[in-house]
């Protein structure tokens, strides 16, 4: 059961590819956690608005959203650290909304490692087991600390003072402290955010495998879309206190319900271009025909196309010949190893194109982009977000003369 269940759950959800996964819930996967119509207000700020979600018995549910989306409030309400104005929290079918945090048997791991700095790693790990009223036998405490240390590869650090650990080691100890108690549910609040990129990458996989090993559900909160996509069995996209979409990473990445959701996943962000139907094609404002259009429906749409779903052809070095109507001009080339990102001006917009591997293109080149129509998404024009990060890109500056060396010491203030 333990090894079979997770693969079965994610597999069936994936192949089902239904819009919201809650509907496609297999009978065996009863939700361990149910959050129902949760609302919370702080003064005049509405932090959560009628939030619904479910975390199944054995799944890693990621809550993804930008700063201020209400992620932490949601997690704290599940933990019992915030009392909601409306709605309920159910665990294993039992309403825990009014229960104290300690009664809920959940473990919370924060972004800041929150260890006792002067204590040894061992003492930090023992702490939750020695809490008043818990009465765990000494031999059992030692067994569990040894087990957690082994799992997290921190056995050799047990007698070291917490303040002398690196950031990655501290976060391992913090996770260890959460698992020694064998809680029924893990709640993680951006636990990898303060770590180096390299460490984050390694811990991401470790955490997924650890959770599977423990077979305990986890709600993991993050603003990092790469973390969400790579770790989640399912993702809940949260924005301004509301759930916008719930589904497997593939469902949300490939079939986002709105441009706001689409922009939250993928790096660089999805390209959004306003189009009109003209002679069987979707055509951009400047007249560039982007792809074939179906014959019925709205005549104006917002076309979303991910950077990796645009192919480029016809490289030509800058300045040769007159630009054709469908050419794009390459502004910036970013090589990142397995792929290359081109920032181009095309069809009256700034668009990102990701091409596999190395690409000989240089700034100033003209290329001919081709949209993979099967992977394009069409949104309602009314859903166009007012602020888009990719529009705020710089114009290349004119050259300015250099100023003399500063005589004063205002430089670094």
């Amino acid at each position: 059961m333990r090894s079979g269940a997770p693969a079965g759950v994610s597999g069936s959800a994936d192949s089902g590819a239904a819009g919201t996964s809650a509907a496609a819930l297999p009978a065996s996967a009863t939700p361990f956690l149910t959050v129902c119509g949760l609302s919370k207000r702080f003064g005049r700020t509405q932090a959560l608005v009628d939030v619904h979600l479910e975390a199944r018995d054995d799944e890693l549910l990621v809550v993804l959203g930008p700063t201020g989306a209400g992620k932490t409030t949601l997690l704290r309400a599940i933990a019992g650290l915030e009392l909601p104005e409306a709605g309920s929290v159910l665990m294993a079918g039992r309403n825990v909304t009014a229960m104290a945090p300690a009664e809920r048997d959940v473990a919370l791991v924060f972004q800041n490692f929150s260890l006792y700095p002067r204590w040894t790693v061992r003492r930090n790990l023992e702490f939750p087991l020695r809490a008043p009223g818990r009465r765990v036998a000494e031999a059992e405490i030692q067994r569990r600390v040894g087990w957690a240390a082994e799992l997290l590869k921190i056995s050799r650090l047990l007698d070291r003072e917490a303040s002398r650990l690196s950031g990655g080691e501290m976060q391992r100890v913090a996770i260890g402290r959460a698992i020694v108690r064998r809680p029924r549910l893990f709640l993680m609040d951006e636990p990898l955010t303060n770590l180096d990129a390299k460490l984050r990458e390694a811990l991401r996989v470790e955490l997924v495998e650890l959770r599977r090993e423990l077979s305990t559900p986890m709600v993991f909160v993050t603003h990092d879309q790469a973390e969400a996509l790579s770790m989640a069995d399912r993702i809940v996209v949260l924005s301004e206190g509301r759930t916008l979409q719930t589904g497997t990473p593939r469902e949300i990445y490939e079939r986002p319900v709105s441009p706001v959701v689409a922009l939250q996943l993928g790096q660089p962000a999805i390209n959004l271009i306003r189009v009109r139907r003209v002679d069987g094609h979707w055509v951009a404002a400047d007249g560039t025909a982007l792809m074939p259009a179906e014959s019925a429906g709205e005549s104006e749409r917002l076309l979303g196309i991910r950077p990796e779903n645009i192919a480029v052809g016809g490289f030509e070095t800058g300045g040769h010949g007159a630009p054709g109507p469908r050419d794009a001009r390459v502004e910036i080339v970013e090589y990142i190893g397995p792929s290359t990102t081109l920032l181009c001006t095309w069809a009256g917009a700034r668009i990102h194109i990701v091409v596999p591997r190395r690409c000989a293109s240089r700034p100033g080149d003209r290329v001919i982009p081709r949209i993979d129509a099967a992977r394009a998404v069409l949104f309602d024009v009314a859903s166009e977000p007012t602020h888009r990060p990719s529009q705020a890109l710089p114009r290349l500056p004119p050259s300015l003369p250099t100023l003399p060396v500063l005589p004063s010491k205002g430089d670094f203030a």
Partner: protein
Amino acid sequence: MSFLALERLHKTYGDGTHAVRGIDLSVEKGELIVLLGPSGCGKTTTLRMIAGLELATGGSIRLDGNDVTGLRPSRRDVGMVFQFYALYPHLTVRDNIAFPLRAAGVSPPEIRRRVEDVAARMDLGKLLSSYPRQLSGGDQQKVSLARAIVRRPALYLMDEPLGTLDADQRLVMRELIRAEQMASKVTTLYVTHDQEEAMSLADRIVVMDGGRIRQVGTPVEVYDRPADRFVAAFVGSPGMNFISGQVAGGPGKATFVSESGQVHIDVPLVERCGHALLGIRCEHVYEAPDGPVVGNVLTEEYLGNASHVHVQTDVGRLILRAPQGPARPRGSEMRLRLDLAQISVFDAATEKRL
């Protein structure tokens, strides 16, 4: 002669910590150099010595022909951008950006022209009368960048300027910095622990570890031909896969054989035989029905535009980058082929590239 030259640069703190252990580096005018390494590798200390915020305990720094090793920060003509925005909270965005110009005695009309020009380029025009606390983190960092570039110093020094920003803002800022640097051609040293940032920004990358330089090279060189095992593992997301084995044969025609015997690869131009590590990037490992390496799927990291599939094989755990496609169930069997043209071989003892 190079524009910026570090020679045998050392920094030892009072408590005996060796932060930087002898660094040699030449930077040409107009280059964008990224110092890349894990925390504690000495990259920030190196940057701070160039800025004059730390004094070197050995070696020298030459900037544009002058020895600046002992000079005060204000005498070095550098513009610094920190990880934390370091703005004056009581000054508006306009006054924050104008500050270095006022200090340099630039005329008010010229200040106005420059501030507005920089603000327009960085999409800060509407925020000029706001105060820092009214801005988002991303906008505060833009102001901090605007303040560094408005004066056009001889050298930009940037210490993890994107470190505290959300992912989407990071990308916007990265492109902003690249565009600005390309246009202004101001020599730039940029510190980060994020290898993707380094790859995408740098003309050349300096990989550091333990206070020393491991490798200096273009992103392509560092990525394709890492000088040692550390660089191979640190650069790339994920780092290289390693397979342990033996190299046998003579110079010009040697063979690498993995410990388990599954992988036989002819490796040219190896000077030494013996225990070795084969390194291969995840995008050079393919699923192939007749592949020689057999394993089972452990975990799939879905990335949207691709997936990293972790496979437990006879030669150890390997990660491959698979194109967009359906999920690979855990436990399922996979046969893999390695692209033999894309391998690196390292000496197992010295960990240096062979």
